């Protein structure tokens, strides 16, 4: 196959074919990755605007800029867009699509057509879901709890079907990654030599394949509940509203790990490269990803400690939830140990990685507060939970997406972003993040419930701080976006390996050629051989 060498030196995936149509019909995983980048970024903008609207409304007691009805909708769309259209596809479908095949020395993913189809599924799903806005909008929260969500409302039906279709996107991506990892590794690339980012994506893919179908049937049932009133989740026919929560969280708890496991993978890459040191405990990190993926399937009931679930089930789920904490702790300790005696370069991607560790540690330890059944009864459905999962999802996933973008940017586009401005964006996001969400831990402890349009006057002070913080985050992302656009247009040429990385993507040209490598690489050692 090496006969297909480039016609000229500068041939790469970006100029391999030309025109918008070539992008919309591309089967190249790198281009599909970028298509995902653009869509996810747009959805992030939409979800972010909703977030700022929420915080602005909560700036002061009483109605500030919108009515309670509007608030319920804004809150619903913020959650649904961020979860289903931003964080779930975020790392796997964008960075994963681009780098998983390259990191294992493959020419493409196993099923390029399915890969493209998955992107269209995401667009179609998003389209259907957002159509609900024309029917007055859904106001159920992103969790669609029954019986509140059973209201024969076209808006809820659209949301449910949109999520169903977007779920296909996630399934197809996961399926593709599993087969790619199994079957398309370059010669010598054993499972013990694949980079940790690939391990993380592989574990994620397993969850995507095994859990998403249950979300599919759940939202289908929800749609049927709204169309026919089938009664599974409606007490009027003997149905059980709590059963809906079982169905929903059987997917949505593992989905939390769909969101965070790939972030772990990115962080492993960033820490090794920027500490220029082999990862500490490769096996432990790799298998802890798998362990998290497996255990994540039987902890879902911790979302339901006060739902009317039985006491026995609550205790079992609390116990199992504690078990997930262990592999997570292992990862954090391993990353810290990797820094020991390293040569640490504090470029923007590394700052994001360190910021991730800081925020994720807080997100992680507060998770134990929520796993402990006695304290969870108090914290459940308060702002403590909101703060906790934002520390994990935003402090974790979004920090690592940003770090990943700045890290792989030179590989994707052959240019470097301005590191100083990237650091400025980090400072704004990191500081803003803590200002926004740390007060919410206190608010939650004090008893302010989540999804509140209005609150007691004594909560106003902390809410104001939180709102101001959210604007800082907004500024940080705008600075980040400008830095990226500037890098695209004016960034200095980077060369194939600006950071001194050791994984396979740094051995090929920047941007990589259409088939990733001019000659298929032969692997003889592990991924992080910094000797």
């Amino acid at each position: 196959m090496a006969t297909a060498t480039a016609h000229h030196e500068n041939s790469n995936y970006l100029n391999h074919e030309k025109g918008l149509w070539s992008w919309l019909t591309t089967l190249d995983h790198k281009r599909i990755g970028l298509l995902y980048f653009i869509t996810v970024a747009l959805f992030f903008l939409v979800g972010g605007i909703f977030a700022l609207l929420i915080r602005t409304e909560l700036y002061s007691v009483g109605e500030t800029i919108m009515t309670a009805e509007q608030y319920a909708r804004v809150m619903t769309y913020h959650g649904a867009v961020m979860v289903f259209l931003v964080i779930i596809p975020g790392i796997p479908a964008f960075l994963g699509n681009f780098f998983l095949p390259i990191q294992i020395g493959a020419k493409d993913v196993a099923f390029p057509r399915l890969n493209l189809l998955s992107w269209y599924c995401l667009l179609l799903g998003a389209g259907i879901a957002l159509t609900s806005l024309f029917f007055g909008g859904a106001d159920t929260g992103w969790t669609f709890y029954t019986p509140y969500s059973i209201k024969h409302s076209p808006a809820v039906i659209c949301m449910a079907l949109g999520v169903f279709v977007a779920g296909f996107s996630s399934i197809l991506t996961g399926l593709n990654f599993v087969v790619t990892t199994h079957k398309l590794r370059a010669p010598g690339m054993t499972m013990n030599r694949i980079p940790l980012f690939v391990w993380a994506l592989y574990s994620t893919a397993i969850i995507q394949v095994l859990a998403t179908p249950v979300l599919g049937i759940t939202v289908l049932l929800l749609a049927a509940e709204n169309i026919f009133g089938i009664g599974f989740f409606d007490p009027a026919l003997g149905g059980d509203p709590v059963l809906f929560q079982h169905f929903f969280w059987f997917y949505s708890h593992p989905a939390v790990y769909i969101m965070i496991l790939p972030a772990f993978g990115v962080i492993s890459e960033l820490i090794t490269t920027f500490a220029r040191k082999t990862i500490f405990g490769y096996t432990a990190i790799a298998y802890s990803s798998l362990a998290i993926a497996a255990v994540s399937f039987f902890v879902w009931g911790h979302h339901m400690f006060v739902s009317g679930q039985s006491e026995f089930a609550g205790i079992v789920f609390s116990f199992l939830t504690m078990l997930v904490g262990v592999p997570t702790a292992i990862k954090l300790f391993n990353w810290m140990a990797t820094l020991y005696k390293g040569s640490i370069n504090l470029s923007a991607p590394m700052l994001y990685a360190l910021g991730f560790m800081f925020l994720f540690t807080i997100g992680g330890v507060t998770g134990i507060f929520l796993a402990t059944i006695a304290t969870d009864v108090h914290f459940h459905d308060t702002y403590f939970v909101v703060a906790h999962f934002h520390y994990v999802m935003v402090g974790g996933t979004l920090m690592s997406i940003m770090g990943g973008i700045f890290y792989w940017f030179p590989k994707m586009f052959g240019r470097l972003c301005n590191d100083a401005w990237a650091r400025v964006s980090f400072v704004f996001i990191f500081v803003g993040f803590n200002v926004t969400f740390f007060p919410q831990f206190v608010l939650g402890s004090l008893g302010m419930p989540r999804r509140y349009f209005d609150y007691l006057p004594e909560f106003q002070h902390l809410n104001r701080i939180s709102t101001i913080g959210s604007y800082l985050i907004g500024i940080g992302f705008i600075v980040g976006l400008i830095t990226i656009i500037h890098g695209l247009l004016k960034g200095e040429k980077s060369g194939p390996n600006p950071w001194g990385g050791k994984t396979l993507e740094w051995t090929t040209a920047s941007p990589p050629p259409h088939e990733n490598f001019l000659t298929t690489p032969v692997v003889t050692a592990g991924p992080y051989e910094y000797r």
Partner: protein
Amino acid sequence: MSTVKSSSTGHHHAHHYESADHEYQSSKQGVWLFLCTEILMFGGLFVGYAIFHHLFPETFKVGSKFTDVRYGATNTVVLLASSLSMALGIYYNQIRDKNKAVMALLFTLLCGVIFMVIKYLEYSHKIHLGLMPGDWYRGNAEELAQYVGGLEIPKNLPLYFSFYFMMTGLHGIHVLVGMGLITWVTIRTARGEFGPEYYTPVEGVGLFWHLVDLVWIYLFPLLYLVS
């Protein structure tokens, strides 16, 4: 597509695979993963069935009296026969017997049609009695009681029909999709595109069709023979 290359043996495999067999094995693994997702999706309904059957055994018992075992059993046999002919369709492709392969696949398709016709008869019977899911239920308790020999009609009987229609409906959609896919591979077989060295699409469609059969194997006792 530009991504497909011809190798010396004359069959095709995409540029990122080493050989036709490599591609075949990968594709098959992909199909199995997809079937795994199907199992979990139907599984959601089965779990719901298990729970509500546990809670309301009477409802399910009475509900199943409105199904006709003869129809259900016939459909089971029809689907099993179609599974056999599907397997034969692959077999004849494996030994490059194009005509028999096409015959087998057409027979499979015919079975799909018979299955759907019987399903249509069953559905119209139930709709006629007003036995629809949930809110759409229009059953008259006295009339229905006569139908099942004086058994008391449980108040949440619509729940049974919600399950009946959700489960058979989702299954029916899969049958229709399967029929579409079989039509596609039949045409390709007739064009002579498959042979012992390349028959991945037939194999994949076959696996899907067998899964549809598998689901029915469980649906039949659950919906028709509940005691």
